[in-house]
């Protein structure tokens, strides 16, 4: 460790503060109900009603920002499954 790394070192407290503010804003807004979990289940149920979905071929991603949550659901639908529907 060189003496310069002392100057380069990022302070971690501001990051802690920011992460908490974003997280708690979401947790307070959805107190009791987890909207994202409900949406995920219902959307997948609707798709599964029409095509056979391989649960290994589903990716669900979530990104929570200060003001919005982005729920990204990727469902791979095989050609034969889609035709059968």
């Amino acid at each position, binding site marked *: 460790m060189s003496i310069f790394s002392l100057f380069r070192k990022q*302070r*971690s*407290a*501001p990051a*802690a*503060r920011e*992460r*908490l*503010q974003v*997280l*708690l804003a979401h*947790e*307070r807004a959805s*107190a009791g109900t987890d909207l994202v979990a409900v949406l995920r289940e219902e959307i997948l149920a609707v798709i599964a009603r029409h095509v056979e979905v391989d649960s290994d071929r589903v990716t669900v991603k979530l990104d929570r920002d200060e003001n919005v949550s982005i729920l990204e659901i990727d469902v791979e639908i095989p050609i034969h499954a889609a035709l059968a529907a």
Partner: protein
Amino acid sequence: MGKVIVVTSGKGGVGKTTSTAALGAALASKGERVVVVDFDVGLRNLDLVMGAERRVVYDLINVIQGEAKLSQALIRDKRLETLFLLPASQTRDKDNLTPEGVERVIAELRRVFDWVICDSPAGIESGATLAMRHADVAVVVTNPEVSSVRDSDRIIGLLDSKTVKAENGERIEKHLLLTRYDSNRAERGDMLKVDDVLEILSIPLIGIIPESMDVLRASNIGAPVTLADATSMPAMAYFDAARRLSGEPLPITIPGEKRSFFGKIFGRKAA
């Protein structure tokens, strides 16, 4: 009628039991009648921190189940004669802690004592919700650390919805007790500052307890930190917090903070 206080946090290991013992002893040292009640059934530790582990005969569950009278289960402190402990059961199932039983015991304690201080177990399950159920005042113990702050936020939500006061449309008095605070690390930007935590949780501050060797030393010998060495930094911070709990408008000071030259001369502005 005494006041019922719950010492709670959500997260474990942040200093609930230490704070319960220290605040209880601080209040009792002024001659107030105090009982500290351990709600952590199966994992009791308040007896150990109070130095009364070898004197436990009956416990809270025995009283709730009608196997012992309250007066038989209460253990008087050897140092302060107005300080009592009601221990939790170490062996019984926590399902024996019934809502009706807890209500009856708390009502009885409230009649006899000036202060009933309930040491909540960690978590948000029945033990924790029963410990806070009849409280007039909540002391939310928080470390300046992300997981502790998040869990405190959750507990504040429960205090506003699951307590008798909240259900009756009243507001439960909530106070933040910031423990294990290291002003040097906070000053360097390596630890959440007092103001950061206050801004996030937005409940009033009752005290700041500095990180200190004295806390471990006190628990080693089985004495509340306010009795082990009343002049130590954490003890003085707990004494101040106890005075604020009693309603004294004492300004908050940040323990161990290096003051500037001008700060030394003019004093720190109260938070």
